């Protein structure tokens, strides 16, 4: 333990020395260099490590199979830039990867708040950037080099609400009214606003949407107020700490809505399941990936098993998203037959992957294409429910687990 904890800073220090002093070795010009901007250290380092694992697996596969064929078997080399989860560090690391490491394409940056400014740096230098991050505006700035294959906040909010309504129709009591509780930073505000729109469109009365202060010590009043309007549905968009507090205080104040849903964030993290145990039973959440998609698509199940065998954990929506971004770049490289930025960018823009067995379809959609903003309009999200401490995939029906039943209402087993 002590040895390990001491080892981390030493390794980091060595890594810093190594990265700052290394010049790309001679002859490496033939390699394809892909920069990865992700949180390798800091509070979200766990995520960055998982993303690195997934990408390393993908790159090793390509290299073992003979590299990029249209480039004469050029090997793919991943070069990592550590954001520490901070926007300013993300920007400087992106610039370093572009100007010093001369990367040909970039993937990043997990947190939308980091990816938003970092991708602008890629655009400035005209290097293709494949986004992982759901903030809508990342691809809504008229940029030419920024792409996102997966869902944005709007798509995720739509999937959640449509899923809830569909699941509610099959169950009783139905959902007629709702309250949305969202934290008051960029993500919570943006996603709650979209959820309200989709709820109203679905004919659900929204009593109120409240943006509570992030990391508040007590939220009883908010829960009491919510209880006062007796909503059928409570939607919470919270980071982990707030998710834990809200769930516990709902229980204390005996607020038990028919459905308790989450826009993602803290409610879908393993730590939430571990800490909340029984109180999480029946929570419905939106996600972009779940291991259960492998039940309908065999290769995904196999790929996930291989990943789990190697790293001890399954893919998560973010590591799968990084994997997908990498495969899209490889696909474009094969067609571009060059690593120069402009033709590579054009090849990415012309992406048209429809084969469900293509490796970029680890997040399976009808197709991967990009509209003029760089967003994949066909990207979807799915709805999962926590049942007995595990996620079950319930919606859309095309990929839902055949044997999964919806648990309705929230906490049905302990009421």
């Amino acid at each position, binding site marked *: 333990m002590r040895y390990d904890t001491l080892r981390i800073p030493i390794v980091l220090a060595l890594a810093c020395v190594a990265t700052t002093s290394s010049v790309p070795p001679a002859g490496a010009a033939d390699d394809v260099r892909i920069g990865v901007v992700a949180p390798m250290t800091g*509070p979200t380092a766990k995520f960055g490590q998982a993303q690195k694992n997934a990408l390393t697996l993908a790159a090793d596969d390509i290299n073992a199979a003979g590299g990029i064929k249209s480039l004469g078997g050029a090997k793919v080399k991943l070069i990592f830039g550590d954001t520490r989860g901070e926007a300013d560090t993300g920007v400087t690391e992106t610039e370093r990867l572009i100007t010093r490491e001369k990367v040909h394409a970039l993937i990043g940056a997990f947190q939308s708040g980091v990816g938003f400014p970092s991708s602008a740096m890629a655009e400035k230098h005209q290097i293709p950037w494949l986004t992982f991050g759901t903030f809508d505006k990342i691809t809504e700035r008229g940029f030419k080099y920024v792409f996102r294959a997966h869902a944005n906040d709007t798509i995720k909010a739509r999937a959640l609400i449509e899923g809830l309504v569909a699941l509610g129709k099959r169950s009783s009591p139905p959902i007629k009214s709702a309250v949305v509780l969202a934290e008051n930073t960029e993500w919570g505000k943006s996603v709650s606003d979209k959820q309200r729109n989709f709820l109203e469109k679905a004919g659900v009365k929204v009593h109120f949407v409240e943006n*509570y202060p992030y990391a508040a*010590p007590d939220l*009883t009043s908010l829960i009491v107020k919510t209880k006062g309007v007796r909503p059928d549905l409570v939607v919470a968009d919270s980071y982990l700490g707030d998710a834990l507090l809200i769930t516990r205080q709902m229980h204390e*104040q005996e607020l038990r809505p028919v459905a308790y849903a989450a826009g993602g964030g803290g409610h879908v993290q393993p730590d939430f399941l571990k800490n909340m145990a029984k109180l999480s039973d029946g929570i419905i959440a939106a996600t972009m990936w779940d291991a259960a998609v492998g039940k309908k698509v065999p290769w995904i199940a196999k790929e996930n098993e291989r990943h789990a065998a190697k790293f001890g954990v399954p893919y998560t929506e973010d590591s799968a998203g990084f994997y997908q971004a990498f495969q899209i770049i490889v696909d474009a490289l094969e067609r571009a037959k060059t690593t120069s930025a402009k033709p590579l960018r054009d090849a990415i823009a012309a992406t048209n992957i429809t084969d469900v067995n293509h490796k970029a379809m680890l997040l399976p959609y009808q197709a991967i294409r990009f509209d003029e903003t760089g967003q994949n309009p066909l990207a979807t999200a799915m709805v999962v429910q926590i049942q007995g401490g595990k996620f079950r995939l319930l919606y859309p029906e095309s990929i839902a687990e055949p044997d999964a039943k919806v648990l309705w209402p929230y906490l049905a087993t302990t009421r």
Partner: protein
Amino acid sequence: MRGLAQAVTSGLLIGGVYGLIALGLNIVFGTMRVVNFAQGTLLMVGMFVTYWLWELGGVHPYLSPLVTVPLLFGLGFLIQHLFVSPLLARERAREPMSVLLLTLGLALVLENAALLFFSADFKTVTTDVSMQTVKTAGLIVSVPRLVGLAALAATSVALYVFLTRTDLGRAVRATGQDREVARLMGINDFRIYGVAYGLSAAMMGIAGAVLVPFFYIHPGVGTSFLLKAFVIVVLGGLGSMPGAALGGLLVGVIEGAVALWVQAAIAQIVLFGIFVAILFVRPAGLLGVERR
């Protein structure tokens, strides 16, 4: 109306914890004239020690003060002795700026060390009292928060007795009133500072113990409480012990009521608005004594 009564009740309950933290902040300020930015971080340390005692030793959080209070007292005394005193000795000013910055630096060091050693994982402790409630007159009262309120009352009384009935306590007050005169009376002021800082840290051991059963544990957990504690201390009166306890309850109630009537985010604006207003209108706070 019942909603309001519920909001005021839960405001009072969380106010107990606020009051404890403000009390700790005020002991240091009352004696050394230093705003201790490391207060929130010491709370975090108290919570982590409580957590590990529970996780590794099965010690109930409410018993952990037996360990955390002496431990944090020692830690506080050491911090004072090793870092604060040398700076304080060099500073001639009555309200030393560099010490304030030093406590901020200490807070950052401790918090990042916690991130490195304990990781950024969120932890919770579920004990027999977690999420227990008592229902009276249609109100739902959270038991662990009620314990927090009781802890504030008990700590306040103990502190009052210490400060007014013991020689050491009187020496602490004397040093707070006038450092130089206290020294002329034969009081070792630097030892008194150590005692004050230690006491203040020890209280974070108590606050940590009452928080752990119903709150989450994370290296950054102290920040949101520390900001509240600043408001409370200014509201109640800088250096005033009853002011800190009363201010804690008041802030809890204001927060609860505004969050219910308007919005939780507006409650923050109101609180910090009061903070600014008090500084302008009555800088000594509600129960503070004007100093020159």
